[in-house]
């Protein structure tokens, strides 16, 4: 296995507060890598540093051997680093079809094409239709996103990230807020993601983490606390103590 | 040279007194109120009418202008502004531009389009020598009044219960609500007070800034510059920005009459691009 994504001594300070404390993380290609930690451990900050929404105070982010620390968000996306958000970030007035077509167009560098209508780019449309079918959104693809039930919006959230054909996909609590009856559909989609796509999962639900991940990193107070296989982490008394100390 | 500097300070003080209410509107409610100058204009016209038609003393006109405009502000806040606090900025802009247009046309209709003059009490006319500098007495008066107001404002903000509630509400409205502070009441009072100060500033400024129906449009940018360049996180920022603007404008018009205003706008644009959160804000450039 080879390394697909790594951080080198990543530090992020907000004023005097150290949100990310010298994190060096290595993610293997094709891994199902979970990132866990109590509230306030700096998981979201770390994700934002990876995707480029935040600039680190010091340290590097390396994707497939190339330093991407200085690249803006959209350039990282086109290099294959996509994410979903814990709280849906969608286009409320778009239909799912328009949203997915947008993502595909941008990936194919059609986004600046300003003459032919959307429908003229037949390959993108076909791909969008296929993607929507795969994510169970075909029957609602023409409706306004804001009118969709939450579970469907959640699927669209993942579909949008997936449309970028990511090599590394960051899933931020993919099942958060989804009602019980729609939950299995979302989880089935997550489990069915192709093996060549590396998945980094940020999750609070330990059952989901232990059933899905093959490797786990534990963040505490902004720093990497420990890292290991599922069995190692499950057996680690210190990790248990951290979680028992908090709520689990 | 020093005379110009002093004129600039007086001018800047006036700008601050008028614009401070706008800073609070913006900082507290994130409301873009382009009609703030209309309150100042109202204060100016109240003074003109009272003095020229009814012979009321100038010194009595100032508190009346403050109170009447504050009442007007409270009325508009309760009936109209309040509905738009959570509206998109575009709506706020449209609404307040609409108010500006209405006030301009209404004043034009009622008072005519000409410049209004007020006759200052004789003791405020003429010049006085202070430390060998020739200083207009009226500008001295303005500076003194404004300085007293600034100190008073600072004390109210720093020392009183209301001041701490206001600061809490500006910092984080949700937390303040959670602490049991009645944010909308605090804001209504502040809005009225800010409008009143604008009215007072307009009354005092009629002589210096000039007073005609286009006042709110002419000075809209100046008030906005004070607020955006100064930032809304403290009172010091807008105060310094107002002084700088006052001095720059007076000096610019004196030394470079051809390009004065152009430079002010240019500097503003550059400043906003370099420091979008204001010149004196802690966030600084991003």
């Amino acid at each position, binding site marked *: 296995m080879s390394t697909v994504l790594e951080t080198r001594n990543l530090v992020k300070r907000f004023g005097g507060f150290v949100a990310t404390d010298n994190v060096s993380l290595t993610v293997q290609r094709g891994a199902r890598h979970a990132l866990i930690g109590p509230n306030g451990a700096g998981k979201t900050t770390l994700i934002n540093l990876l995707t480029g929404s935040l600039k680190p105070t010091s340290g590097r982010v390396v994707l497939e051997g190339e330093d991407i620390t200085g690249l803006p968000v959209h350039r990282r996306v086109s290099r294959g680093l996509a994410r979903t958000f814990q709280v849906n970030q969608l286009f409320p007035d778009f239909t799912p079809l328009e949203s997915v077509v947008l993502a595909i167009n941008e990936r194919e560098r059609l986004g600046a094409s*300003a*003459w032919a209508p959307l429908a003229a780019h037949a390959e993108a*449309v076909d791909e969008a239709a296929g993607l929507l079918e795969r994510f169970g959104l075909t029957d609602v693809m023409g409706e306004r996103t804001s009118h969709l039930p939450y579970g469907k919006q959640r699927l669209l959230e993942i579909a949008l990230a997936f449309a970028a054909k990511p090599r590394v996909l960051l899933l931020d609590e993919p099942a958060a807020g989804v009602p019980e009856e729609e939950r299995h559909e979302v989880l089935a989609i997550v489990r069915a993601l192709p093996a060549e796509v590396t998945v980094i999962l940020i999750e609070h639900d330990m059952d989901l983490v232990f059933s899905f991940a093959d490797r786990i990193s534990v963040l505490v107070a902004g720093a990497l606390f420990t890292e290991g296989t599922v069995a190692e982490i499950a057996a680690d008394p210190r990790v248990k103590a951290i979680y028992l100390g908090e709520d689990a | 040279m020093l005379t110009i500097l002093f004129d600039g300070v007086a001018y800047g003080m006036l700008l601050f007194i008028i614009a401070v209410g706008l800073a609070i509107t913006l900082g507290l409610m994130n409301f873009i109120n382009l009609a703030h100058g209309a309150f100042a204009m109202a204060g100016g016209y109240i003074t003109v009418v009272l003095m020229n038609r009814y012979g009321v003393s100038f010194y009595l006109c100032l508190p009346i202008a403050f109170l009447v405009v504050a009442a007007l502000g409270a009325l508009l806040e309760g009936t109209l502004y309040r509905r738009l606090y959570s509206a998109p900025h575009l709506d706020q802009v449209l609404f307040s531009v609409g108010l500006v*247009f209405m006030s301009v046309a209404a004043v034009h209709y009622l008072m005519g389009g000409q410049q209004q003059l007020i006759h200052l009490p004789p003791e405020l006319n003429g010049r006085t020598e202070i430390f060998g500098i020739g200083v207009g007495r009226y500008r001295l008066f303005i500076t003194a009044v404004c300085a007293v107001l600034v100190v008073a404002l600072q004390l109210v903000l720093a020392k009183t219960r209301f001041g701490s509630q206001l600061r809490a509400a500006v910092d984080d409205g949700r937390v303040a609500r959670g602490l049991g502070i009645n944010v909308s009441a605090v804001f209504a009072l502040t809005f009225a007070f800010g409008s009143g100060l604008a009215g007072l500033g307009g009354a005092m400024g009629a002589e210096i800034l000039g007073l005609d129906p286009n006042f709110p*449009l002419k000075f809209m940018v100046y008030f906005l510059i004070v607020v955006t360049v100064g930032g809304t996180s403290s009172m010091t920022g807008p105060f310094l920005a107002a002084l700088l603007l006052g001095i720059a404008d007076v000096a610019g018009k004196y030394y470079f009459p051809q390009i004065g205003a152009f430079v002010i706008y240019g500097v503003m644009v550059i400043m906003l691009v370099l420091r979008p959160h204001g010149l004196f804000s802690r966030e600084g450039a991003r």
Partner: protein
Amino acid sequence: MTAVSESQEAVSAAAPEHLAAAQLRRRSAWRAYELVLWLVAVALIFLLPSKALLLTEIAIVALFAVSLDLILGYAGIVSLGHGAFFGLGAYVAGLFARHYFTEPVTGLLVAGLASGIFGFAASFLVLRGSDLTRLMTTLGIALMLAELANQMAWLTGGADGLGGFTIGPILGLFEFDLWGRTGYIYSLAVLFLAMLIARRLVHAPFGLSLKAIKANRVRAAMVGVPANSRIVVIYTIAAVYAGFAGALLTQTTSFVSPDVLAFHRSADVLLVLVIGGVGYLYGGIIGAIVFTLLRDWLSVITPQYWMFWIGLVLVVIVLIGRENLARWHTFLPAPVQRVFKRAASWRPGVKLGGGG
């Protein structure tokens, strides 16, 4: 290609890609109201020759408002200084005709080019910051330009305006007439071509990405939309359009007043767009019709105070809510609503009432 009918869509529902393609085609299909609008606009050349000057004004205001819609309605940039590009176009067209060449189409293109270059440079200043800082930046740029035009009296005529030039025949063929008929046809043609192009832009992937930037900038970046470069492009195009509009005003009136750079131009065009509705291009045209007729009417009954009524309209619109204004038809009785709905969604190639 004509649109696919409802029944065909039902048959092909089994194949999602056909359904998807059909849905996307429907987005960009010509609507009945568009065709009616343009036919009426052409018919008015013959039906209302005495009102040609007013119609010309409507066409110019419409083009200006469409230009604003491109940045406000599509990219979500609130501007209080869009008049800068209008005014620049107006002055450039005037100066070009006075000093170089009187043929209007050339002048129009030169004015559009000048505004476009200025808009390109200015676009970098609106990329960052909040709504308020953008508002101030755009306003500041417009004020600088107004101040400049006022001070450079040797070039622009200062407060007296720029006159003393004549505009030659269009393409050397069509002479401007006293009644404004040629001017109207010319302005309408420019508006139509500009709309054709704008329609393509907004229905293409480019337009979709603009709407994405407006709707959710965080997510737009996260699907790979380079927001800054898209905004630069659309801001430049919008500046060209505004420059065209200003040039049309100069060429149809043979005069440039310093009023072209006044603050109220920028405020008025916002009002125009808001009256007609933001984000679908035709809002600019519909708003221009309503606004210009309203102003014409108000300035007849209260010559000096129409500004008051315009202000009142603004305040009332905001208090009613723009979104309520946009769906005014839902407050009509149900049968009337149905007629409107059919008319609005009717497209050539589909039988009226064929749907459900």
